[in-house]
């Protein structure tokens, strides 16, 4: 099956006319990645890395300087109407026509897809229920909170029951409950066979949701791959929590920290586990817990970004 999204050396240059001397800034530098059908792909990067710019280019809001991208096989420059009928887009910090109510806006979006009348009303109700905005249907968008706008945004991106979703910061502005709801929704949509490409700052969420991720830093793609692939180089250690150990208990090659009457021992590498356990038992201590730890995406990410920045990006 072909990739839902293929980006090939997408570049965007922008001329900065400050101080009367035009300077060419490269915002995106040969970005490449693919999104396979049915997967959730996380597009991650620090602020200003170019996530939103990339998405804008994909959606035809701005024109790329060079490189190509294909959505469902169609070049984005074609701006194919067929493709647009099968995708849903949620922009970052969405703004809507503030003179419309939530319901009117969703119906407007539906009308653009040719869904009108009773069908439109049914669809609107269904979507509003899905995002928990049923009671707010008659509220003017002008009066909605950020969270409500975000939910409305999600709803409008689903109006046409699209196969492919492009969401820029989908959980921004939502409280923890809201975030959970969205995450659950994303998993549900994936179960329905949809493909989701989203950008985010919130890495733990990405870790939980994504099949594959792409990290972009300073306009360049840094790493692309599945989480296991990315994290296989990452550091892993074992954390042992023990108590009733005598004062001054120490282990070689291990960090020992005393917290509330317990000792938290960090062993570098799983091989050190058995000898350490033996030593603890011999010292008369009791094991509270043993947890193998892996560097999580967040710290991996931070490390990667730092490395990239040091490499002068």
């Amino acid at each position, binding site marked *: 099956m072909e990739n839902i999204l293929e980006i090939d050396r997408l570049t965007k240059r922008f001329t900065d006319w400050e101080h009367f001397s035009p300077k060419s800034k490269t915002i995106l530098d040969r970005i490449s990645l693919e999104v396979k059908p049915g997967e959730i792909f996380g597009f991650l990067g620090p602020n200003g890395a170019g996530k939103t710019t990339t998405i804008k280019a994909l959606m035809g809001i*701005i024109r790329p300087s060079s490189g190509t991208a294909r959505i469902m096989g169609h070049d984005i420059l074609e701006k194919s109407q067929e493709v647009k009928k099968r995708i849903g887009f949620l922009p970052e910090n969405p703004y809507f026509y503030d003179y419309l109510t939530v319901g009117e806006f969703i119906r407007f979006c539906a009308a*653009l897809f040719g869904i009108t009348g009773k069908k439109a009303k049914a669809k609107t109700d269904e979507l509003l229920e899905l995002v928990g905005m049923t009671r707010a249907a008659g509220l003017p968008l002008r009066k909605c909170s950020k969270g409500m706008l975000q939910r409305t945004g999600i709803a409008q991106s689903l109006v046409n029951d699209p196969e492919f979703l492009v969401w820029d910061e989908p959980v921004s502005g939502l409280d923890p409950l809201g975030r959970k709801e969205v995450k659950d929704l994303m998993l549900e949509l994936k179960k329905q066979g949809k493909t989701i490409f989203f950008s985010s700052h919130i890495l733990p969420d990405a870790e939980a949701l994504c099949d594959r991720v792409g990290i972009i830093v300073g306009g360049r793609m840094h790493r692309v791959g599945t989480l296991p692939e990315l994290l296989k180089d990452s550091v892993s250690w074992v954390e042992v929590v023990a108590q009733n150990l005598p004062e001054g208990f120490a282990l070689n090659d291990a960090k020992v920290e005393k917290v509330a009457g317990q000792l938290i021992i960090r062993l570098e590498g799983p091989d050190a586990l058995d000898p350490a356990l033996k030593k603890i038992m011999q010292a008369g201590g009791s094991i509270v817990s043993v947890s193998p730890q892996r560097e999580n995406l967040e710290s991996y990410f931070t490390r990667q970004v730092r490395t990239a920045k040091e490499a002068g990006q």
Partner: protein
Amino acid sequence: MRRILTIAVNTFRESVRDRILYGLIVFALIVLPGSRLVISLSVGQEIRILKDFGFGAIALFGLLIAVVSGTAMLFKEMDKRTIYVLVAKPVKRWELLVGKYFGLMATLLLAFLIMGATLVLTLALMGGKPDGLFFLTIAGLFGQLTVITAVAMLFSTLASPALSAVFTFCVYIAGTSADQLRLFADRMPGDLLKIAAKAVSYVIPNLQNFNFRTESIYNLPVDHAKLWLMLAYAVFYVAFTLTVASIILERKDLK
């Protein structure tokens, strides 16, 4: 086609809910009866003066609405980023433009109906009778605005609303004298200037084509052919202008 209609309806809704429009209409409603005050300063010819004044007021307010809304329309979409949502929908940019144009024309139509009715009422109270020519004149004023609105939208794809508004007003003023320019063109020194002057006089909208004020005041006969020509002119000119605007919009980066 349906998409254009959807956008047009939406635009109409936007204008109607926009407070500026109300402000202008209310103002017009005050001014039109206020013309009675002006009339009291003249001796004789009250009906003519009322018509004079009334047509002028309608033309002016119509122009204000057309220019203010027309130039702000696209800018608002882009400035407020509301256009992002539309971009991923199967709506072409030209459909957006055309939809907004028709939505705005619908709004103007409403404004004209209100102002026209007010004038008719005022006229009737003074013992005057609005005849066919009267309505034709108002229709002509509306015709001018179909063309000017298109020009306003064209400028709005290129410049900020304030600048576009200024340009559009200038075009309106130039447009009322376009035929004069054509006559003067022959007197220009040098062939290049002659050709340039003639070219400009064709490119700017010839608003006199829509002007029936003189016929109305002096009760002169109206040639039917003129009406058809007027319609044809509006259609061609508006189509041309909106096409150019669409092309510009298509190639624009929407920040």
